[in-house]
């Protein structure tokens, strides 16, 4: 049996163009959120039932006195053993599932019967969100409808620099190892985040917490 699919998110190649954020909305027919400029490029401010992919921006000053600006294209990690599925299933059978062929983790309309706060806090990456109108829980689907038909996820297709790569998990894991090794020459702190636990594997060149509070489990 194959080990399913994976996405590599190589933050060292991400220019934060937000093509992935927009492509996600386009493919999944999600509306634009009415936002305000609050003093950051990051917008919307957070994931929501209508924003499943969000490029997070984090800035500051490095030890050498130069600025840094880190970009983190946040989304569901599609855990190999997803705690959200356990939690939802514990309350409502059929509220969440894991696709056998790809490993995609999905919420169904029945997920509205699970207590949202408990589901959200069960996620090590703070991903699930609730549709306030219907109560249904929402998040990235790994574009199961696309990947089951031989197409890459919408976000991956939109990426101009190759920061997002989609493929067989085994091949992606090999790419991750190779890339981290190469990056370590310039960035000693380079690493892959929780690669053995998640399908969406982030490579960072600095402490994950500098990118995003919930970057790592």
């Amino acid at each position, binding site marked *: 049996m194959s080990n399913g699919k994976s996405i590599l998110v190589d933050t060292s*190649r991400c*220019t*934060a*163009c*937000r*093509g992935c*954020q*927009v492509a996600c*909305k*386009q493919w999944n027919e999600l*509306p*634009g*959120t*009415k*936002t*305000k*400029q*609050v*003093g*950051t*490029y990051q*917008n*919307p401010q957070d994931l929501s039932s209508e924003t499943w992919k969000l490029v997070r921006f984090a*800035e*500051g*000053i490095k030890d050498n006195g*130069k*600025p*840094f*600006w*880190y*970009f983190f294209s946040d989304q569901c990690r599609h855990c190999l053993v997803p705690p959200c599925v356990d939690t939802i299933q514990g309350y409502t059978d059929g509220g969440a599932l894991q696709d056998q062929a790809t490993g995609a983790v999905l919420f169904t309309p029945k997920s509205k019967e699970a207590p949202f706060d408990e589901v959200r806090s069960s996620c090590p990456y703070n991903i699930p969100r609730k549709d306030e109108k219907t109560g249904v829980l929402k998040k990235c689907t790994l574009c199961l409808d696309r990947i089951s038909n031989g197409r890459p996820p919408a976000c991956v297709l939109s990426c*101009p*620099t*190759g920061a997002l790569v989609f493929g067989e998990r085994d091949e992606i894991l090999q790419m991750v190892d190779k890339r981290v090794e190469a990056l370590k020459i310039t960035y000693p702190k380079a690493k892959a985040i929780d690669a053995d636990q998640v399908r969406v594997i982030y490579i960072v060149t600095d402490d994950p917490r500098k990118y995003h509070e919930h970057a790592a489990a």
Partner: protein
Amino acid sequence: MTNHYIDIRNSDCILIMGSNAAENHPISFKWVLRAKDQGAKVIHVDPRFTRTSAMADFHTSLRSGTDIAFLGGMIKYILDNNKYFDDYVHNYTNASFIVDEKFTFNDGLFSGYDPGKRKYDKSTWTIKVDSTGIPIKDPTLQNPRCVFQLLKAHYSRYDLEKVSSITGTPVEDLKAVYEMFSSTGVKDKAGTILYALGWTQHTVGAQNIRTMAIIQLLLGNIGICGGGVNALRGEPNVQGSTDQAILTHILPGYLKSPSASQTTLDEYLKKFTPKSSEPQSANWWQNTPKYTVSLLKAWYGDKATKENDFCYSFIPKVDDGQDATLLAMFDKMYNKQIKGLVVIGQNPACSTPNANKVRKAFAELDWMVHVNIFDNETPSFWKGPGVDSKKIKTEVFLLPAAASMEKEGSMSNSGRWVQWKYKAANPPGDALSAGDIVYRIMAKVKEIYKKERGTFPDPILNLQWNYADKKGMWDPVAVAKAVNGYFLEDVTIGEKTYKKGECVPSFALLQADGKTSSGNWLYCGSFTQDGTNLMARRKKDDPTGLGLYPQWSWCWPVNRRIIYNRASVDADGKPYNPKRPLLAWVDGKWAGDVPDGPWPPLTDQEKGKLPFIMKPDGVSSLFGPGMAEGPFPEHYEPLESPLSKNLMSAQLNNPAIRIFTGDIDKVANADPAFPYVCTTYTSTEHWCTGGSTRWQSWLTEAQPQAYVEISRELAEICGVKNGEMVKVESPRGQVECVAMVTTRFRPFKIGGQTIHQVGMTFNYGWLFPKDCGDSANLLTPTVGDANTMTPEYKAFMVNVKKI
């Protein structure tokens, strides 16, 4: 671009300056990162730390408007430390040429300046020639009057401390950039420059680029893989618009615009056809008569004959010395001298500097025609903020246009690749392509002139206007073929005969006798003789492995992917860089890219040619007398600067710029009321003034409202917290927007004082969304570059106040 996008991957050092490539040319970064993968260093020099800086190996900042000082320091570093590519400088530049004794430079001014006219008499900016007209050279480069020594003397003033005090860049950072980039001045390394509007939009814009061109020539980086001087053009087809002459100083194919004093074709050709006595110079512009006559034949067809000067008298001419550029046009409009305006796919109410002046100027028009896919602040100016609609007499016609994917045609990218695209969908409702709209308007104008005549109807009645298909729709293929050009009679060239009606397959075959037509000689060859459209090619073969993809689309000139490529080989035709052999003379012919001319290498004294074929002397110009403000670039402060004195000379501003003096053209230099340097830019998420993107909710959610980026230090001075509303003011206007307090802008130390800089996007306007804020161009000044009149959007002075 001298090179092209894919070629960026071949570079060893990529300097990004005057550009925010990652944000504004996202695809370019695909190739920048490929180069980085191969070990290339990426340097970003910009006042602000941007998404480009975040991806670079090294970022340093400079104060807006001080690029010549920064780069002048690099020229000095290269010369002082012998980092230049000796062979290239000797053979392929005018370094050894001797300059006229009367040419001088003194305290910011070159010889020949007339302060009254704000113009130079350039008669002393000349190269000395011998009795046969050939430039006098000193191959040792030791003669104190040779270009090399004059260059050295000129930039000896640009020492690290002086440059740092002007730019605000720390000395250590200057040294780091100079060292990294000048390491490419060896034969097997390539350095490239990616620039954009951050260089052009200054009163010294053209000279910013020339300074870099000098650096690239000293390092031997032009004409080679991974090198070049590369402008990332601002719109998908803006390269095409320049090639086809949507500018006042040129005709299609960069032929010069005629002036009123050139009353006959002979006078015009005499003035603009360069002569050269240099035996090994190709002097390609000597073909100007062929290209000009073929252009006139494309426009006037059978009506253009030798006897009537090929209808030369029909083409409009500017008065001698007339400024017919955008800024001058709006100035005239503001002063009630223009009655009608046609605007196609543009939003000058938000995109032109001093936008209040522009918006007021619209009210002086009798009519305005606006062609666009959405309404924007230009056709709706009459209901804008502070406008009493009842007092506006201007009649506005808004014509719905087809969007890019709703029309067929060519798109020329920054790398000169002309790609044919097809229509994906029909435009909605009554919308038509801009081609159709222009075609129908002109057809109607011809009809009216035919009926009613006019003062001078001949140019309109005789204009060839046959670009409609059978259904009466404008036919882009017919236009493209006319641009390419036809044989108008059977023509025998060498041993080959071309039939009347066939396409001319290369501009080398164009004729000056009226037997060929070509709407743009540079695009001649985009169709084969039998009419096959080469722009539509999509073959991915890459025989050189250098990413030239010669059968993907078509590229001007003659499918040459990297121009001046003969400079990549030595005098024997051997590639300087054996790892990336762009061109090589093998067994009596050239292999690799399409060479810059078929001639053998330079050692063939009889047939060999010098590499810079568009220059009369065959070599490139370290000394460039064609510029308005001097043959060597010199640092001048922007029109509005925080300094009352230029730290480099007694000359504060560019001495050759036009100063607008109207009541609305206010300027504040070193004025405590406007203490902060401001620059403007665009973001990834919006397109220019946002005229097309502000209607798109996925984009407005990402960048919803106007903002000003300011440093933490300045925020403290202004008492502003991140996310609070502020008012940004210049002498010309004010904009309310959100303060984005950031570590990515930091104060500069300039001439011993602390200078703050802020920056704004010009992506917004009052029309939609209602709360997004108005245009940053309400603040920018009416002033342009001395050569091009490109407005100085990038450096001016403001104040920031908490609301």
